[in-house]
């Protein structure tokens, strides 16, 4: 999948996809992603096995993440260059949202 298609498919991004990509800037496995995201969001986002498995499958199929090794029956994934670009585009969009809602709260 090329960047243009990936941007069309993933932007705006769901919170699940956003946090999985954000988490995989450091290589991690499914269970580790769940723990990291839970810590990042003060337990607000607790992703289940089905959600993580399906999301990882989709991101891997589209080339946004890639498996790099396996440790203790756990597949370790990392974000790809294209995944990083898509994540940055989404972060820019969120920053714009933030700017435009300043003063609202």
């Amino acid at each position: 999948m090329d960047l243009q298609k990936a941007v069309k498919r993933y932007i705006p991004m769901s919170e699940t996809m956003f946090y999985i990509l954000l988490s995989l800037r450091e290589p991690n496995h499914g269970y580790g992603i769940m723990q990291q995201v839970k810590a990042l969001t003060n337990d607000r986002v607790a992703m289940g096995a089905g959600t993580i498995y399906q999301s990882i499958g989709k991101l891997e199929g589209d080339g946004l993440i890639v498996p790099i090794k396996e440790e203790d029956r756990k597949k370790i994934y990392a974000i790809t260059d294209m995944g990083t670009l898509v994540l940055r585009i989404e972060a820019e969009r969120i920053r714009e949202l933030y700017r435009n809602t300043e003063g609202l709260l």
Partner: protein
Amino acid sequence: MKNTKRVWLSAFRYVVPADYEEWFEEQEALGWHVEKIGQWSSIMMTLKKDKPRQYRYVVDMQFSHHKDYIDMYEQFGWEFVGQMASAYVWRKEYTGERPESFTDQENIERRNRRFAIAVLINLVLFSLTVLALVIGFIVTFGETDMGQKLQFILGMALSAAFAAYLWYVWRKILRNRSK
């Protein structure tokens, strides 16, 4: 009092994944435990009576078996109960908040869509069977005796009835895809 009971055609009665999960959980709460699920459990399942338990059940559909799929669920603390064709059944004992495997709407709908696709494939196959039988009946009409004609009619009626049931199931899953 008998300490086992047989349940017939449960997978054909609770066709929406969330409904099937709730049925399993209700049985556990009543003390009827599922020991193991196998290929024929959709037809007949044996439950054993014991103390009531609070379990969360998850029914998932995987067309191809991935080793890391099983590993991932187990790492999250789910117990593999078994599989019926491509339908995987998981459970987890809990207190407090009911645990979820699909924690966002997008992935709940993707799970349900896979069930709908599996039913649709079978619906197409049974519809083609009905069509083939109708064509065969018409083409061989002059050459078959009454017994053979009755066999054709019975085959057509059974296939059509099952295709109609699959149509109903497919529509029901789609109507409940957000569940």
